[in-house]
């Protein structure tokens, strides 16, 4: 295993690089000299405006969302002892998307700014509760329940599209669902940050429990773990963090699946050691993908964030399944 200090330095450097890339990439080149000058002589200037009002909020959201996805994926994988678990698999992401679409669709978000993240979280919690209650009795059942709940939420989304009041509304919903961080502002950051941070807290509180689950549920219980509480904390944390994140970005998938797998070769398989690195790597992956969407040359529209993560994530999922198939009898 790579030395701890070296690893931390590497991840920090990567994260910093991604943050700088995210701040620096865009349609408009920001002259570093002007920015530097603006620090000492704060006066309104175009580069500073673009940086402070557009790029910094976007970067912060990228960090929050990416870390939420990575952390939630690691916790769910630890809880279910299954390397294929992630919030998308358990229907939580689809539920969040449905909640957010309902908020936008029925005009709630126009009148009440908090509506979108709140309904996103509500949708995520509803989906999580459904998965949790139907999926009792083992990992396989829970994953199947998650698939069923995803299907249900997807049906809801299709219904919304079907009855869109006009073609442009349908188009907008579709595009929004593809996921994007573009043109997000400080208001949205401040809106979702509290929910995300509370979600992180819930997820972090499961760290001892999911470690003990390495021994299986019976032994973990005998070690004093309240498994029902752990399940509840993991799903509530996921619903809060991923729900709020989805409410502001649309559906961005696979990061929660990929991040833990990328860090395990370096930190080992013990669930508690995977949590923080997964969060950091999730942030790195998301920022990187977001920068890529700004940079990839396209004829018409820009590639959307969710599309990019799916295109890269799905083959990875395949690879993972094949690897697991080879390992197990």
């Amino acid at each position, binding site marked *: 295993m790579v030395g701890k200090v070296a690893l931390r330095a590497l991840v920090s450097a990567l994260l910093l690089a991604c943050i700088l890339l995210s701040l620096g990439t865009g349609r408009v080149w920001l002259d570093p000299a002007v920015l530097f000058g603006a620090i000492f002589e704060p006066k309104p200037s175009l580069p500073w405006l673009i940086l402070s009002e557009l790029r910094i909020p976007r970067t912060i959201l990228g960090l929050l969302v990416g870390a939420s996805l990575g952390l939630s994926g690691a916790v769910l994988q630890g809880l279910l002892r299954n390397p294929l678990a992630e919030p998308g698999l358990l229907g939580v992401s689809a539920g969040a998307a449905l909640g957010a679409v309902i908020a936008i669709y029925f005009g709630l978000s*126009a009148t009440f700014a908090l509506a979108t993240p709140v309904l996103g979280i509500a949708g995520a919690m509803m989906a999580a509760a459904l998965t949790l209650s139907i999926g009792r009795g083992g990992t396989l059942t829970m994953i199947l329940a998650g698939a069923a709940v995803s299907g249900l939420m997807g049906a809801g989304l299709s219904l919304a599209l079907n009855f869109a009041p006009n073609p442009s509304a349908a188009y907008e919903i579709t595009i929004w669902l593809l996921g994007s961080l573009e*043109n997000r502002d400080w208001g949205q950051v401040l809106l979702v940050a509290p929910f995300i941070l509370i979600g992180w807290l819930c997820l972090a509180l499961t760290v001892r429990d999911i470690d003990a689950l390495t021994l299986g549920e019976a032994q973990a219980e005998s070690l004093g773990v309240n498994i029902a509480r752990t399940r509840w904390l993991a799903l509530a944390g996921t619903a809060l963090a991923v729900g709020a994140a989805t409410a502001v970005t649309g559906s961005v998938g696979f990061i929660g699946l990929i991040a833990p797998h990328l860090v395990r070769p370096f930190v080992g398989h013990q669930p508690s050691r995977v949590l923080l690195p997964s969060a950091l790597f999730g942030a790195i992956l998301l920022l990187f993908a977001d920068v890529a969407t700004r940079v990839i040359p*396209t004829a018409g529209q820009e590639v959307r964030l969710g599309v990019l993560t799916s295109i890269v994530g799905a083959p990875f999922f395949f690879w993972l399944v094949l690897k697991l198939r080879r390992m197990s009898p």
Partner: protein
Amino acid sequence: MAMAVTLVAGVTVAASGRPAQRVAAALPAKPQRIMSTNMCSDLLLLMLVPKERIASVTYLAHDAVEVLMPGADDGVPVNRGAAEEVVQQQPDLILASPWSTPVMRRLAAKVGAPVVEIDSANSFADIRRITRQIGALVGEPERAEALVAGMDRKLAQLERQRPARPIEVVAWSAGDFVPGAGTLTDDIIRAAGAVNLAAQLPDESSSSFGIEELLVARPDSIMRGQTDYSEPSLQDAMSEHPVVRTAFKGRRITYPVFLHTCGLPQSADSAVQLHDALAKLPEGGVAW
């Protein structure tokens, strides 16, 4: 009868400057049951022909009618562009959009109704042509001329009132698509005496004109399309970015989108509104 048909066909050819649209059946001189499956031709139809001669218009037209000529579609049946409605309503002329389905054309042929595809207008010249085309098709060429004349009068008036220094605008509604050169919006902007910044984009197919580009381009005003479908949409969320809101405070001009997507004689009114709104802009450029 044959002469009338030839006349109509001839006018259609002359007006469109291209081979006549393929018609499956003979065009009647003064059709009595006209069905329109194209929202833009709905509106022209309602302006040119009395209600009794209309078989149906699309369900999308109502909102625009409420704005332009309230009550004009009272009692007019509504279609959803479905092919079965063609059989049901037995029209003797169908005004369709350029992407009508083959099924509809087949059924129309069976019913004996000629289908004419009406283009979308990208300029005032197009509006003149299309208005005259529809006027000829429905047998009301004089009324069509009257509408065109009214439009030309307004445009001439605007020409006389051209401002000294052209104002820079951009019709920036959804960030992904900005009407550039060759669109009706562009024509309207020019008629109003302004300069469309989007028309100057070096690469016409360049994707988004996002907030960053907007701030760099610094137009004197941005135009925001107002659909009369007052359902909320993300468009509101988009333009509400605090940066844009503060930078362009008092410099946002709304325009009715349907007058830009549908080329109508009333599109000149949009140019007039724009001209008047631009005159009220605060002095100087946008400041941070």
